[in-house]
């Protein structure tokens, strides 16, 4: 124990004696450890911290499967049959999401609402902390209206007052009774992105629903595996179930319809996992570079300490004791780096959580906890041993007697030099991996930004509007509201044009769902599965295409004449036109949407418009059809109560926000407006996750490049310093300056060449990890690799210039003046 104290004191003194070295080492290590701690805390919060469910590994999601949509939500009959016909699940529950307007106490507020079957909390193994869950009665159609509050809403809107349970709330003009409060942080699987749901209402599925109507897929289904059942078994059973349904209802399903089950954990975090793992890999590499740099510094120092160590050995210090002492010093150094790094991380985590887009789930779980602290501590010790071991071993291994005599000077430093060179080559390799990754991500991002979204996003303001389904119960009342609102908006000064759509591209929920239709005169009766043409569906107002800047390629836009009672109209996008009418002109052709009575008229194609990348710039446009909202649906369905408004501004779209709000209030003061943002903001947040990963990896790559350059400079400068005399001798023997330059540069060149070769191999291997984050560029893109190698050559050359010049300027007369 005494020995350890002595080692510590000795190490502390050693570090204080060389403040410059200590500062550089601590800052380098703090950067590496801090970045690792910050990213790990995100990984910990998002990926590692268990989901707040009972045994979350025993939970599975259940999906239908179509080629276009590999994980498809279920329809009501599918859900009932899943419960009746499978054995892998002990129990299943279904849920969906929506939104509703809370009125009464305070300003009207639009809230995200989860609708779930009464059994869902039991499936997840979660119970309300106050009150109770939904009863059987409440889950039946027409049952008592009940609602569960989220902890967040309970605190925000009701001051965490437990007596709110039992009270009535007004949601969408309907009174409901609060029956309970869910635990803090609770969300249904897949609802962890953004703010999540703020309250939950019973789904009230009808057990007696028409089992033949299978077209409406809106249920997320979660099941708890029976004891002994596996996820694979559940997936196989689901697949068999869905294929069985297809056989029973051949007209309802496409030929490839199938089903599967996936893990709930994957469902919650699956989308961000690759990005997080890439970031974790990047910071690990950064730390390795930092370690290599500090090890290099220690090795350089070991040259000057060689005599001291030889002396200590001569005085009887054992080798293990020396190693311990040297390791104590490096672990102390690492500890200082760890502490500073942890402070950097606290600050970095705050920044990360602020910068992270809402699409990253569970951000509220991100922070420094015991696991993160343990990780940092372990990392710190590992780091200290990692960068301390090589110098320590070298220190005791070399020819100790040699260090005490003069003659063999040129020979003694050889081993250390080799290790330092290896370290630098390693740094170059790692820097190359990071720079390659960053370069691929930057190029992906730039290419993504160059993609034509299919409309002109500049000068557009968007907002979401939700009508109360009680006060606007009929389709007619909704049409009247919309017409009135668009009319008034169109007259607001500064507004070029106003339009609306069921869902705008790249905003909010991106799933607009597909719907199939048959072509007049081209399908069997009843239609075969192959007669159905699926397409994403939109309902829009006249002027939508002009407002958005979507080109009309043929035919016409909708007009006010496309109203109820007029002949049904439909506009298709270019992709759909090519798919459904290859080599023909679709304008004038007629189609009938599937699903029976919801929309039961033959519609005539009146126009073809350009493709829009609805689901984001990185997703290819899909076949899409547009229906005029005023005559949709033209059957027993009703006009949607929630739509997106889009305004094309003459100038700055943000300046229109107050007049938009005032105009909506003018039509109906109780209608809340939500998601007010410019189209460019919406598209920006859509790309925000990519952008963040790109910026982080680029930042790490720049730090890596800097550390690598410092490493090369350090080794070359040290080498030249050590070899000043040798260079003088070579000059005395007739070497011209060019030959000296070549000597130094070739040393550096070998380092760089070795590093680049190893780094390229590693980057090629690591590229697969990155593939999912890339866009229109392959992870093996040769140009990127050549470019990155060039960058490293330039950086290495820059780092070699000063030492090389110093070598050339060596005074050859030194050779004659020994000591």
């Amino acid at each position, binding site marked *: 124990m005494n020995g350890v104290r002595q080692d510590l004191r000795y190490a502390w003194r050693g570090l204080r004696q060389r403040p410059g070295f200590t500062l550089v080492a601590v800052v380098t290590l703090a950067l590496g450890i801090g970045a690792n701690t910050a990213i790990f805390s995100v990984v910990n919060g998002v990926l590692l911290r268990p989901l707040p469910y009972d045994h979350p590994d025993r939970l599975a999601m259940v999906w239908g499967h179509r080629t276009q949509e590999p994980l498809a939500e279920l329809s009501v009959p599918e859900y009932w049959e899943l419960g009746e016909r499978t054995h892998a699940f002990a129990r299943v529950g279904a849920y969906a999401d929506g939104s509703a307007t809370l009125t009464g106490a305070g300003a009207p507020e639009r809230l995200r609402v989860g609708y779930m079957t009464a059994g869902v909390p039991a499936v997840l193994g979660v119970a309300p902390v106050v009150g109770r869950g939904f009863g059987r009665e409440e889950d039946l159609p027409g049952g008592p209206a009940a609602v569960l509050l989220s902890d967040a809403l309970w605190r925000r809107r009701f001051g965490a007052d437990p007596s709110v349970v039992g009270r009535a709330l007004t949601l969408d003009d309907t009174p409901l009774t609060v029956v309970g409060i869910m635990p803090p942080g609770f969300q249904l699987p897949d609802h962890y992105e953004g703010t999540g749901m703020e309250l939950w209402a019973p789904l009230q599925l009808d057990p007696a629903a028409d089992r033949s109507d299978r077209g409406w897929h809106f249920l997320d289904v979660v099941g708890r595996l029976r004891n002994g059942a596996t996820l694979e078994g559940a997936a196989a059973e689901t697949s068999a179930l869905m294929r069985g349904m297809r056989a029973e209802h051949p007209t309802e399903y496409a030929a490839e319809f199938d089903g599967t089950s996936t893990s709930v954990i994957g469902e919650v975090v699956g989308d961000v996992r690759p990005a997080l793992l890439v970031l974790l890999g990047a910071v690990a590499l950064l730390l390795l570079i930092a370690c290599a740099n500090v090890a290099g510094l220690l090795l350089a120092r070991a040259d000057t300490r060689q005599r001291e160590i030889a002396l200590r050995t001569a005085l009887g210090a054992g080798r293990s004791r020396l190693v311990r002492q040297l390791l104590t010093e490096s672990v102390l150094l690492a500890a200082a780096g760890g502490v500073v790094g942890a402070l950097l991380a606290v600050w970095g985590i705050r920044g990360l959580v602020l910068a992270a887009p809402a699409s990253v789930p569970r951000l509220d779980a991100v922070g420094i906890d015991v696991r993160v602290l343990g990780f940092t501590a372990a990392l710190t010790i590992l780091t200290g041993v990692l960068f301390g071991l090589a110098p320590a071993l070298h220190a005791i291994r070399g020819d100790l007697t040699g260090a005490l005599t003069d003659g*063999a000077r*040129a*020979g003694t430093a050889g081993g250390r030099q080799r290790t330092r060179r290896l370290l630098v080559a390693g740094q170059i390799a790692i820097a190359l991996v990071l720079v390659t990754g960053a370069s691929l991500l930057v190029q992906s991002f730039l290419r993504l930004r160059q993609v034509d979204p299919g409309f002109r996003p500049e000068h557009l303001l968007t907002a979401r509007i939700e009508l109360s389904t009680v006060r606007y119960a009929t389709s007619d009342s909704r049409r009247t509201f919309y017409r009135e609102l668009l009319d008034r908006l169109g007259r607001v000064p500064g507004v070029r044009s106003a339009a609306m759509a069921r869902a705008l591209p790249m905003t909010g929920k991106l799933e607009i769902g597909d719907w199939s239709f048959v072509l007049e005169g081209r399908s069997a009766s009843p239609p075969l599965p192959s007669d159905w043409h699926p397409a994403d569906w939109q309902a829009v107002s006249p002027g939508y295409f002009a407002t958005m800047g979507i080109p009309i390629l043929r035919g016409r836009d909708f007009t006010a004449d496309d109203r109820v009672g007029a002949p049904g109209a439909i506009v298709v996008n270019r992709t759909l036109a090519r798919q459904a009418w290859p080599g023909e002109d679709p304008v004038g052709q007629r189609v009938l949407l599937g699903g029976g009575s919801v929309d039961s008229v033959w519609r005539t194609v009146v126009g073809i418009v350009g493709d829009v990348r609805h689901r984001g710039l990185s997703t290819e446009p899909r076949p899409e059809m547009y229906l005029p909202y005023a005559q949709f649906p033209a059957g027993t369905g009703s006009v949607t109560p929630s739509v997106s408004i889009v305004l094309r501004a003459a100038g700055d779209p943000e300046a229109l926000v107050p007049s938009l709000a005032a105009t909506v209030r003018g039509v109906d003061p109780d209608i809340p407006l939500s998601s007010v943002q410019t189209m460019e903001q919406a598209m920006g947040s859509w790309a925000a996750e990519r952008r963040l990963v790109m910026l982080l990896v680029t930042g790490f790559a720049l730090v890596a490049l800097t550390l690598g350059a410092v490493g090369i400079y350090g080794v070359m400068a040290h080498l030249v310093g050590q070899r000043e005399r040798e260079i003088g001798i070579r000059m*005395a023997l*007739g070497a*011209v300056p060019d*030959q000296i330059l070549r000597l130094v540069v070739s040393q550096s060149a070998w380092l760089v060449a070795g590093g680049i070769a190893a780094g390229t191999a590693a980057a090629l291997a690591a590229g697969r990890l990155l593939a999912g984050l890339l866009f229109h560029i392959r992870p093996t893109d040769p140009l990127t690799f050549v470019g990155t190698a060039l960058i490293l050559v330039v950086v290495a050359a820059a780092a070699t210039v000063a030492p090389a010049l110093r070598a050339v300027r060596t005074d050859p*007369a030194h050779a*004659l003046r*020994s000591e």
Partner: protein
Amino acid sequence: MPLAIDPLIRLTGLSKIFHTDEVETHALSGIDLDIKAGEYVAVCGPSGCGKTTLLSILGLLDTPSEGSFVLAGEPVSTLSAAQRARVRARAVGFIFQAFNLIGDLTVYQNVELPLKYRGMPADERRSAVLAALDRVGLLHRLKHYPSQLSGGQQQRVAVARAVAGRPLVLLADEPTGNLDSANGAEVTALLRELNQDGATLVVVTHDPRYLREARRTVYLFDGRLVPGAPLDVEVA
């Protein structure tokens, strides 16, 4: 054969001033010195009198501040660093007190190095290296590294390195300074043989034995040649 009429080396009015932190050191002043081809000249004098400075100017490692230096009929005091390096590679062989072998290179590679710098073709290099090492009796140590040799052996390698390229002049600064008397005698004998075979030698020394070996001794005091000093005589 070296030029018979002109001296191989002619220094006229040569001086060297070092400037350091406002201090001027007149290391050499007004040196006039001729050395003929085939001569064996010993340079002696007290410490700090300028012996090493003189040798580094003779070896074109340094340039004089004033005066002229003509080597084999060619003025060399105004050459550029690169030009001096080329003359050095061709015309000068160095033997240092501290041997100054390069630790990373083998005996063979050490001897070969100046020949490489001179741009000699590989096969010529090989025979020259082997001949030089044969001459110093170290043919059996070609693959050894300097650290594996004794001091005397290292200095013999250094001699081989200096003579392998058949330079016009061999310059040695205290070549036996780091050797015991037996090894020193060996190296001294080697230098004598080289001179008898026609090599021109300038040797800086404190060692009285050299003064006997040398045909002529030049005495330096405070940067000046001491005229008519008893030792500056031709020993016939």
